C-alpha cells in the first residue's frame, strides 16, 4: 500500500540473518525454506548481543508474531485504508489476526469520527442559539439579524482563510470555534444596545431623520466604540504573545483569537453602522421599542 512507509516483522530479522550468515550475499535476501533453519536462525539471534530485540516481533514462546506497520502520513484516510485492508484480509483468510491501530494517524481518524462531527454540530447549534438569544434580547428579529452580521462575517472570513491556507480543521481550531462565537458577537450586542439606548434617550426618529441617526451612530462609535476598540486591541495584543510560542497549537490559538478580536471589532464599528444606515427603513419601520 502506498500510504505504508515501512513494516517490521520477524521475517525481516530472519532475512537479515540469512544474508549475514552467507557472507552478506544479496542472493540470500529471503526467508529460508525450512522451519528448522528459521528456528536455528532465531536461536542464533537469541544468543546475540541484544536478544530482547526479538520481543517486539514475536512473543516469548514463539507462538504469535507481530507485524509493525508504519504509515508515511498522519492522514486519517491513510489509517482508514489500512484498517479496511486488514478487515478484508481477515475476511478472506481465517487467521487469528488482530490489528491495533495507534499513533497520530489513528488519533486523527478517531478525532474525525467521534469528536469532529460533534464539534461541528455543536458549533452550528450554537450559531442558531446565539441568533435566538439575540432576537429575544433585542426583542426584534431584524436587529438580531443585523447584529449577527459581524459575527457571521468574522467566522466566515477566518474559516475561509484557514481553509484557503490549507490548514486542517484540527483540535485547537474546533475547540476555539464555539468560544469564538461568544467573543465575536459580544461587540455587536454592545454596540446595538447602546445605539438603541441613545436613540431612545434623544427621542430621535431614526426611521425618517437620517442626520439624527448619523449623530447617534457617531456618538455610539465614539463613546462605547472607543471601549470596544480598546478591549479588542488589548485582547489582541495579549494573545499575540502566543504567536511566538514554539508549539504550533499555541500559535494557532494566538492567531485565531487576535484576528477574531480585531475583525469583529472592526466589523462592529465600521460595517454595522453602514448596514444600519442602509437598512434604516426596514429596521425602524416596525419592531421599534415603544
Amino acid at each position, binding site marked *: 500500500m502506498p500510504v505504508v512507509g515501512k513494516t517490521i516483522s520477524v521475517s525481516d530479522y530472519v532475512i537479515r540473518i540469512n544474508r549475514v*550468515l552467507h557472507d552478506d550475499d544479496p542472493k540470500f535476501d529471503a526467508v*529460508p525454506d*525450512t*522451519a*528448522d*533453519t528459521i*528456528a*536455528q*536462525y532465531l*536461536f*542464533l539471534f*537469541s*544468543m*546475540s*548481543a541484544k*536478544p530482547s530485540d526479538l520481543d517486539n516481533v514475536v*512473543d*516469548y*514462546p514463539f507462538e504469535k508474531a507481530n507485524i509493525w506497520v508504519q504509515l508515511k502520513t498522519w492522514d486519517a484516510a491513510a489509517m482508514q485504508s489500512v484498517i479496511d485492508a486488514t478487515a478484508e484480509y481477515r475476511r478472506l483468510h481465517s487467521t487469528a489476526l488482530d490489528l491495533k491501530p495507534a499513533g497520530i494517524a489513528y488519533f486523527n481518524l478517531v478525532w474525525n469520527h467521534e469528536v469532529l462531527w460533534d464539534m461541528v454540530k455543536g458549533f452550528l447549534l450554537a450559531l442558531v442559539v446565539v441568533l435566538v438569544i439575540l432576537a429575544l434580547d433585542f426583542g426584534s428579529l431584524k436587529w438580531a439579524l443585523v447584529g449577527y452580521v459581524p459575527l457571521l462575517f468574522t467566522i466566515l472570513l477566518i474559516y475561509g482563510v484557514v481553509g484557503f491556507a490549507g490548514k486542517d480543521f484540527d483540535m485547537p481550531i474546533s475547540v476555539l470555534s464555539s468560544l469564538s462565537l461568544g467573543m465575536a458577537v459580544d461587540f455587536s450586542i454592545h454596540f446595538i444596545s447602546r445605539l438603541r439606548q441613545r436613540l431612545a434617550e434623544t427621542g430621535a426618529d431614526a426611521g425618517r431623520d437620517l442626520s439624527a441617526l448619523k449623530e447617534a451612530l457617531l456618538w455610539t462609535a465614539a463613546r462605547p466604540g472607543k471601549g470596544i476598540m480598546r478591549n479588542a486591541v488589548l485582547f489582541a495584543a495579549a494573545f499575540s504573545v502566543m504567536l511566538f510560542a514554539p508549539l504550533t497549537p499555541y500559535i494557532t490559538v494566538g492567531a485565531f483569537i487576535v484576528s477574531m478580536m480585531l475583525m469583529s471589532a472592526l466589523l462592529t464599528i465600521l460595517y454595522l453602522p453602514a448596514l444600519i444606515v442602509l437598512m434604516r427603513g426596514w429596521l425602524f419601520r416596525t419592531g421599534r421599542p415603544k
Partner: protein
Amino acid sequence: MMLLRQIAISLLAAAAAAPALARAAEPSADEIVSRSLESFYYAGNDMRTKVQMKLINPQGKVREREMTMLRINLGAAGDQRYYIYFHGPTDVKGTSLLVWKYPVKEDDRWIFVPTLRLVKRIAADDKRSSFVGSDFTYEDVSGRDLSDETHALVRKESLGGRPTYVIESKPKAAVDYARRVSWIDAERWLPLKEEYFDVRNEALRTFTADKVEQTGKHWTITARTMKNLQSGHRTEVVFREVEYDVGLTQDIFTERYLRDAPSQWVR
C-alpha cells in the same frame, strides 16, 4: 603485685594468640575467592554434564534449552575450553557452541548452525554478555579472574544451615555491576548466593545455589537460579549426570567436533 603480673601475662598471651587465631579461622578475602573460583569453575581436570535451562520471562512464559556441556582445563594459567551441544528445543537440535576461555583476554567463540552445516565465529567482545539468551553471562558460566575485582571479607554468617564467608567484590574496570556480594561456603567453597548491585546501589541480579550435591570428591551446584531483578526475567539451571575426570581430550574442543558431535560424550 601477683595479680598485676597475672594480668600482664594473660594480656600478653592474648595479644600473641589473637592474630594467630584470626589467621587460622579466617583466610584472606583473596584466598576465599580464589578457592571458590577453583571449586566452582575448575573442579577436576574435565567435566561432563547434561544441562537443563529454563528461561522464564516476567509473565511466566518459558523457553527451554537442553544441552550437554563438556569442559576441559588446560594448564596452570587457567585456560579452559567448553563444548556445548543443544539437544533441544528440537528444531535447533545439533546447534553447538565452542568457547575457548582465556583468563587474561577475551574468549574465542564459535557456533555451528546444523541446517547450513556452517561454523560461524561469533563476536566475543564482552564476557559480560548473555549466555545463550539467559540471565547468566559467559563469565557466570566460565568464571571471572580473581584479579578482575578487589575483594573484602565482610563477615561470617550462616546461610541455609551452612557456614559462609560474606565477600564484597568490586570490579576494577567499569562493567555492568558496581558491587557484588557473595556468600561462600566455608567448607565446600561454593558460592551459595550472590547479589549484584549497580552504581546507584540498586540490586541488579541475584544468584542462588538451590541444590548442592557431592560427586566423588567434588561438590557441585546442581540447581541454580539467576534472577534479573530489574527486568523480572529469570533463568533456572539444573545439572544432571555430572561427571568429573572422564578423560576428555583436547581434540574434542575443535571445529571438527563442532560439526560432528563426539557421540561418546554427547548423548
